[in-house]
Structures are given as structure tokens and as C-alpha cells.
């Protein structure tokens, strides 16, 4: 019999609220989150989550905001997660927005969704102060966290005040969340993919999508209530939200929230995680730190000599041999779930040898996001793994002779469509209703999926983020020094790291008599000034100056596929 996808025991639940109730019954006063606020470490239990969701839902009902679109933005915080779930639990639509998007994008996405409430954390204070006057449709701005300095506008309340209002209503008998009749097929979240408001698409998810993706995450990860996890990825991503914030609590695991990107490695050492959900950038960084430490101790040659021999020993023995390495991450790290972008196989082999398993998976926001994962007991390097239990994967080939084709997906986690964009929705599905991922690949005889390329222009970075080249080109195109520009992702030599590269055809009329170096410097300055307006992950790292215009088709569009 052929081996299949791992299926660990999963605690079932019907709706997201049902999940929260059952988790509170199972785990009660157990820690769901450890987080730091104003340098004070705090605990948030499973019972707290149920109370918060009930109170927020009742508060939204009191304010006639139940059933409405609510934007949520900021750093990971228990109140963020509670708000997200509460909005959905009273029939509303959560719109999680990247905290790093520009003020214009923030306004644009809120306007597209006609949000009536914005819930935000301190990371958004500056942006909200800049844009709140433009958001005339918003009836309440709710600020999570301590020390709020709210703008002078009646629409602003603190999260604590909202919670107190909800608690009062709940204690007076309001049962908004409990009594809400869930329609699993109804829209409950809109998630904007990267890009400008013009190019971005709002992925529409319902509870059926989120529940099935959560149950699939639980079944492949096999987490338990003994597990400890450190949350480091941005929470507005479905990968972090579903696989970490929804799935792990269903197993009773505890989560320490990384309080700053600067403290990541120290928080691993402090909170001693048993499992991590990461993107390749983090695994690469951990790998680099391991070898830098080995180098500092002058043991590089010895370890490299030992590894081929040690890798044949049982895992428990390997973990004892490399206990100092595992110790740098707290000493208990058992496995890492890695997704968002492909991971170099060398890294997986090294971590395997040290006794830390890496399970690579594949997902897409439009599938809430999980499509496939490598089973823990049978992993293939380079592979995106096997489909998860609720999903079906097919390869649509142009003709049967081809080995590869577009990866198309069906199943209960596939989105409803793109918000207010029926044209894009239509393009996203095949005639028989399967979702087109835009990725090219094949499935081997053991049912493992391999991705070999992409149909879309998106630049996929090692931090799992997608960058839409059109957005960068739009920013750069504003400069009168640039005549044509194309942004691409170029792999660094000898590594899988992708550097966003701007290929620029300057307006040479502006550079008469200038040397190549002078032209490069001027264009580089333009790029740097654009970088300063963008979140770090979108920074254009390299610039290449072209002597000739880009090749264009008859409608004068640049033929991107010809660019190398």
C-alpha cells in the first residue's frame, strides 16, 4: 500500500466560534498567549479568549457594528486575534490589513470594503492619525494596547472601553456570538494580496474555507497541548493566521508572541519553543547563526567531518550530539513548519542532521492557505509535499506530452472569489471550477507535488512575501529620469535568495554627456528614495541599467517573458 499524508488526531469543530468554545472547555486556564506590553510580560488564557470574543461581539452589537466590515491592523496581539474572531462570530467581515502598507493603500482598502470600524494596535498610531479624517465611513476606531494617545475625535475608543461595554452587555444577557446562526458559505474575511489598491485583489474567504484549512493544518502538524510556539510572522497573512493562530490553539499549544523582530533569536532561547511556523528567511538566518557560532568556536571542519556519520544515527542521539546547537533555540525545538517560498534542500539536510525536522508546505491565500505539505514521516527535498486531506490537486497540461502544467486546486478551502472583481474571479477558475494557482509543476508517482515555475509576474521572496512588480514599476515610473522600467526577482549566485532588481532604461536625453557611472548613481538615488517609502520586504536591492529599450508587442506592452 502506498504511504499517504500524515493524519494526526484532530479535535473537530464546526464553526470558528464553536472552536473557541470547545478550546475553552478543553484548556480553560491554560496559557494561550504570552506577550509583552510596555516591557511587562502578560498571560492570556484559553478562557480569556472566549470571554474576549463574547464581549467584543456584544460590544459590536451594542454599537450596531455587528455584521459589518471591520478592518484590523497591527502587530500580533491577543486582542487582535480576539477581534478578528469576534467580528466573524457576529456575522461581520474581518479585513486584516498589513501594518506596513502605505497610508494611501490603507485608505484605499478601507474604502473598497466600506469598513465601518477599524481596530488597530500601537504600530498603526501614526498612520491612523494621518488618515482617519479621510475614512468618513468608519464609525469607530478602536485602539488596542496601553498608553493610547487618541486623536481628538468622538469616533475613537480604547479597546479596554470597547471590552467593558461588551462585558456589561454580556452580563446583562446579550449573547450575540452564541446566538449568531452561522452560514458557513457567507463571506467572513477579505484578505488583500500585495500590490497597489489598483492591482491588489481582495481574497474572499468564508468560514468553510478557514475551518477546513485549520483542521488540515492540525492534521499535518500533530501539535499537542505540551507544545510551545513562538509567533514571528505577520499576522495578516493567512499562513500565520490559519496555521499558527487558529490551528495551534485547537491542539492546546501555547504561543509566545515575539515582541520585536530584533528579539527573535533571544525569544527563541527564552521561550524554548518545541515547534515554529516560519518562512525560509528565518530558517536561513537560524542556519547562518548556527554556522557562525560553530566557526567562532573553531569547530567548522570537525562538525562538517562528523555530519555524514552522525546523520545515520537515530534522531535522539543526534539531538544529544548537537545539544549546543539546539540549545541556541531553547533546547526543545522539535520541528519547523516552513512555507511561503521554497527552502534550500541543504538547509533541510543540515537541520535534519542536528535533529530538528523541517516540514515544507505549500499554500496560497486563495486557499486559506494550505494546499499541501510534506508528511513528517516521509519528506522529499524540493517537493511541496502531498495534498492535505480536504484538498484536491490536479495538473492541467497544455498537452499530454508535457511533463508539467498549471497546478489547479479544488476543495472546501478554496476562496469564494475576489472582492468586487468578477473579471479576476472568472480568470482565476477553470471551466470546471478548479482554482488556478498560477504555479507550474508536476505530481510524481508517490503523489508528491513539485513546483517548477510560475505563470504570474509575482516576485516570491524567501520571507514568503509576494511582491507585485507592477507596484514598484509604478513608483519608479514617476521619475522623469526613467523612461522604462521592469522589476524582477533575480536569484543571487549560489543561493536561492531572491533580490528584487529594477531593470531601468533611463531617459538618455536627460543624461547627455554623462558617464555610465553618473547615470547609475542618479538612477540608484531615485530607487533609494522610492525604497524609503516602501516596507523593507519590497526594497529594490539591485539596479541594472539598460542601453536599449525593452522589446514590446504590437500593443506596445513590454514582453516580460523575454527578459532575462
Amino acid at each position, binding site marked *: 500500500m502506498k504511504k499517504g499524508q500524515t493524519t494526526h488526531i484532530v479535535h473537530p469543530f464546526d464553526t470558528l466560534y464553536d472552536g473557541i468554545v470547545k478550546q475553552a472547555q478543553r484548556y480553560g486556564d491554560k496559557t494561550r498567549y504570552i506577550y509583552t506590553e510596555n516591557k511587562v510580560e502578560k498571560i492570556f488564557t484559553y478562557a480569556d479568549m472566549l470571554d474576549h470574543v463574547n464581549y467584543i461581539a456584544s460590544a459590536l452589537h451594542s454599537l450596531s457594528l455587528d455584521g459589518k466590515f471591520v478592518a484590523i491592523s497591527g502587530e500580533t496581539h491577543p486582542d487582535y486575534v480576539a477581534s478578528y474572531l469576534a467580528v466573524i462570530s457576529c456575522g461581520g467581515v474581518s479585513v486584516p490589513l498589513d501594518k506596513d502598507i502605505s497610508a494611501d493603500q490603507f485608505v484605499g482598502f478601507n474604502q473598497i470594503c466600506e469598513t465601518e470600524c477599524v481596530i488597530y494596535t500601537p*504600530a498603526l498610531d501614526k498612520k491612523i492619525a494621518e488618515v482617519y479624517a479621510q475614512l468618513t465611513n468608519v464609525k469607530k476606531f478602536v485602539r488596542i494596547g496601553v498608553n493610547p494617545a487618541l486623536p481628538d475625535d468622538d469616533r475613537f475608543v480604547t479597546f479596554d472601553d470597547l471590552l467593558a461595554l461588551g462585558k456589561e452587555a454580556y452580563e446583562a444577557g446579550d449573547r450575540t456570538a452564541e446566538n449568531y446562526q452561522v452560514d458557513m458559505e457567507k463571506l467572513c474575511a477579505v484578505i488583500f494580496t500585495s500590490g497597489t489598491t489598483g492591482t491588489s485583489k481582495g481574497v474572499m474567504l468564508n468560514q468553510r474555507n478557514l475551518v477546513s484549512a485549520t483542521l488540515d493544518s492540525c492534521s499535518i502538524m500533530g501539535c499537542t497541548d505540551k507544545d510551545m510556539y513562538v509567533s514571528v510572522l505577520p499576522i495578516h497573512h493567512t499562513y500565520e493566521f490559519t496555521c499558527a493562530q487558529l490551528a495551534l490553539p485547537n491542539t492546546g499549544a501555547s504561543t509566545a508572541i515575539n515582541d*520585536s*523582530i*530584533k*528579539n*527573535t*533569536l*533571544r525569544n527563541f532561547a527564552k521561550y524554548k519553543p518545541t515547534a515554529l511556523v516560519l518562512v525560509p*528567511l*528565518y530558517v*536561513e*538566518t537560524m542556519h*547562518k547563526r548556527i554556522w*557562525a557560532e560553530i*566557526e567562532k568556536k573553531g569547530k567548522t571542519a570537525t562538525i562538517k567531518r562528523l555530519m555524514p556519520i552522525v546523520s545515520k544515527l537515530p534522531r535522539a542521539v543526534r539531538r544529544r550530539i548537537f545539544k549546543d546547537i539546539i540549545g541556541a533555540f531553547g533546547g526543545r525545538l522539535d520541528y519547523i513548519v516552513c512555507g511561503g517560498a521554497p527552502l534550500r534542500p541543504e538547509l533541510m539536510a543540515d537541520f535534519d542532521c542536528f535533529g530538528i525536522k523541517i516540514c515544507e508546505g505549500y499554500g496560497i491565500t486563495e486557499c486559506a492557505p494550505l494546499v499541501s505539505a510534506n508528511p513528517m514521516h516521509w519528506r522529499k527535498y524540493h517537493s511541496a509535499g502531498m495534498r492535505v486531506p480536504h484538498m484536491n490537486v490536479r495538473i492541467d497540461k497544455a498537452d499530454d506530452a508535457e511533463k508539467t502544467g498549471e497546478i489547479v486546486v479544488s476543495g472546501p478551502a478554496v476562496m469564494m472569489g475576489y472582492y468586487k472583481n468578477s473579471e479576476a474571479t472568472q480568470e482565476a477558475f477553470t471551466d470546471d471550477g478548479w482554482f488556478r494557482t498560477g504555479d507550474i509543476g508536476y505530481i510524481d508517482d508517490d503523489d508528491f507535488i513539485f513546483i517548477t515555475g510560475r505563470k504570474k509576474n509575482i516576485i516570491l521572496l*524567501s*520571507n514568503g512575501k509576494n511582491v507585485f512588480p507592477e507596484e514598484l514599476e509604478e513608483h519608479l515610473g514617476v521619475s522623469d529620469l526613467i523612461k522604462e522600467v521592469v522589476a524582477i526577482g533575480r536569484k*543571487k549566485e549560489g543561493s536561492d*535568495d531572491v*533580490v528584487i532588481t529594477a531593470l531601468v532604461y533611463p531617459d538618455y536625453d536627460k543624461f547627455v554627456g554623462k558617464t555610465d557611472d553618473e547615470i547609475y548613481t542618479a538612477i540608484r538615488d531615485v530607487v*533609494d528614495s522610492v*525604497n*524609503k517609502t*516602501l*516596507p*523593507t*520586504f519590497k*526594497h529594490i*536591492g*539591485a539596479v541594472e541599467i539598460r542601453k536599449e529599450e525593452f522589446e514590446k508587442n504590437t500593443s506596445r506592452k513590454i514582453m516580460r517573458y523575454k527578459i532575462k
Partner: protein
Amino acid sequence: MFETIKNILIEEFAIDADMITESARLDTDLGISSLDLAELAFRCESEFGVEIKDEDIATLLTVGDIANYIDDNRQ
């Protein structure tokens, strides 16, 4: 100050000393990822007693930018 930052880059990230100049770009010239940069910011904070805010890390593009930031924010 530049020398101290340079030493951190050599010690922590094993970067060749000759490549580290004030105008060297952290990402493309020195191969520093956003997470490395956060770690570098942490080391600089400990060394110089100046807090580098998470949201400001993205604005540091060159070694010189770090030195200037620390200079500007020193009390």
C-alpha cells in the same frame, strides 16, 4: 563609531572587512537580510545605548545610515 559597527559586522556576520565601507549597501553589497539587519540593530542598541525602532530599521540602507541614525538619536 563606524569602526565599532564594522567590527560587529565582521564578528557577527563574518563579512570581509574590506567590503565594509560607509557607503556599502547592507543588502546587496554585504548580503544582510532584513532579519540580520534586525540583529545588527539589536547589537548596535546594546553597544551605543540608542534604541533603533522596528519601524526605522527599514530606512537603514547603508552602513553610514546606521552610524548617522545613532548619531542623530544619541542624547
